[in-house]
């Protein structure tokens, strides 16, 4: 089974972003592997360790620096990587999910992948659209928000997170697209020996602009602003005052 894993270079989860000129200011900001993509790579590597998969290919779409994201994926255990280069912003400001899924579609068809694992969403755009759009373009079954995956390489049972609990879905025949959620696994650290090994692994580079796909955004971003600062709470003197405020100010009790 050949697995293609999408890995996205995003603003590091721990960074507090600032809004400047109606967009997120990315200057001098720490970028890292999207946490959900990290979970996807971990799952793919585990499937390889279980001998269910025989190759894990990591793919990213991004600028020159996105090779660092691929190096992380290779250090975690991916066999080789594909870097689709573009200087377009990948946080929804320029490159958007429909174009991204078309790029993935082309690579999946060339690579003959049996399974595509993606993070459920990028923590920059929070779209969650690439997985479902890709499945639609390929005509493949899809499961999103996977919290558990069991497969023998031919069929697959996925436990899926929903607002009201876990849904279990059986994909009777691969190939399929699965997007990964938080509970799926705990990603490994990149060990020094594996980081050294990753340097020798193959990375194929290709320009997004040369793929014959329309990369123009389908949606226009009208405005970007920071959420209003949280209002300070107040201390109340006693229970009566609390009830009064809940009733008459917050209006949350009758």
């Amino acid at each position, binding site marked *: 089974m050949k697995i293609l894993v999408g890995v996205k270079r995003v603003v*590091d*989860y*721990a*960074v*507090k972003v600032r809004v400047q000129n109606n967009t997120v200011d990315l200057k*001098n900001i*720490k970028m*890292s*592997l999207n*946490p959900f993509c*990290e979970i996807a790579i971990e799952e793919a590597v585990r499937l390889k360790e279980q001998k269910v998969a025989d190759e894990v290919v990591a793919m990213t779409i991004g600028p020159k*620096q996105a090779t*660092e994201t691929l190096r*992380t994926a290779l*250090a975690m255990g991916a066999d080789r990587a594909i870097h689709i280069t573009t200087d377009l912003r990948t946080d929804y400001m320029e490159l958007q999910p429909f174009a991204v899924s078309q790029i993935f579609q082309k690579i999946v068809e060339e690579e003959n992948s049996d399974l595509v694992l993606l993070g459920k969403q990028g923590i920059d755009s929070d779209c969650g659209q690439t997985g479902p759009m890709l499945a639609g373009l390929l005509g493949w079954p899809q499961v999103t928000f996977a919290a558990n995956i069991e497969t023998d390489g031919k069929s697959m049972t996925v436990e899926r997170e929903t607002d009201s609990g876990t849904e279990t879905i059986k994909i009777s025949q691969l190939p399929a697209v699965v997007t990964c959620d938080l509970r799926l696994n705990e990603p490994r*650290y*990149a*060990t*020094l*020996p594996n*980081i*050294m090994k990753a340097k020798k692994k193959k990375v194929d580079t290709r320009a997004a602009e040369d793929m014959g796909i329309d990369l123009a955004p389908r949606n226009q971003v009208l405005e970007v602003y920071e959420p209003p600062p949280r209002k300070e709470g107040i201390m109340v003197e006693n229970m009566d005052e609390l009830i009064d405020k809940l009733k008459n100010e917050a209006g949350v009790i009758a």
Partner: protein
Amino acid sequence: LSVECLNNIEYFDSMSGILGAQAGCILQDLQDYTATRDHLVPIDLGAKGTCQIGGNVSTNAGGSYYYRYGSLRGNVLGLEVVLANGEVLNLGYNPSHLKDNTGYDLKALFIGAEGTLGIVTKVAILCPRLQKSKCAAFLACQNFEQVIKALEMAKSHLGEILAAFEFMDDEVLGVVKEKVPLPILEMYPYCVLVETHGSDEEHDLAKIEKYLSSAMEEDIVLDGVLAQSLSQVQDFWKVRESCNPCVAEKGFVYKYDVSLPVHDFPLFVSEIRSNMPPE
């Protein structure tokens, strides 16, 4: 005596990096404040969520960034103190200057005086610029000689970007492991947390990779992991900062802050161990 109500930040000059804060300000709050202004408070302690800057000054606190940013004696540029007779002294607090080589350095007496000469009420502290790139590695060594070599190599390879070098031994980590997962799964006699601060991530990572591959080639470092995100950097620090609380939870702890020449550390530890009952 508590100064927790004296918790206002009075001024911050981004040109010089001088922060003027009242003694009851919590260190974490000062770090958050300066971070949004591209600066950083030069001391960092595990207790930063609760400790107050006045207390840090009165105890001459060290912290994990001591090697890189120096001690409070160098970074405190001014103090306001209240003497036992009620007199309030402004010792270079307002105004506060980067360079003041006039006269006796009276404020220095109060740093580490633990309140015996007066109560610290305001602190003017020099904050370095916050570096854009923060990287960390968690390394494993076979013995203390290797830890020392790893430090020497870090100084020569990492140079100006080395910010913290914290070692932990297997006894402590064995206790920490029960509460906090360790980045390295195998148990080694010593682990080291190395952190770098620099202005250019590509440049810093290139230095770190050279350091790590040399250290591994020479068997100074046997294993290790390199943080791939700031969350992982925080995970490494969680292990380091859990050492004290996890050990304390095990029973009764006698804590002594002892400064020794680096080469004497293992001898000191083995002497203490040999003088303790086997349990």
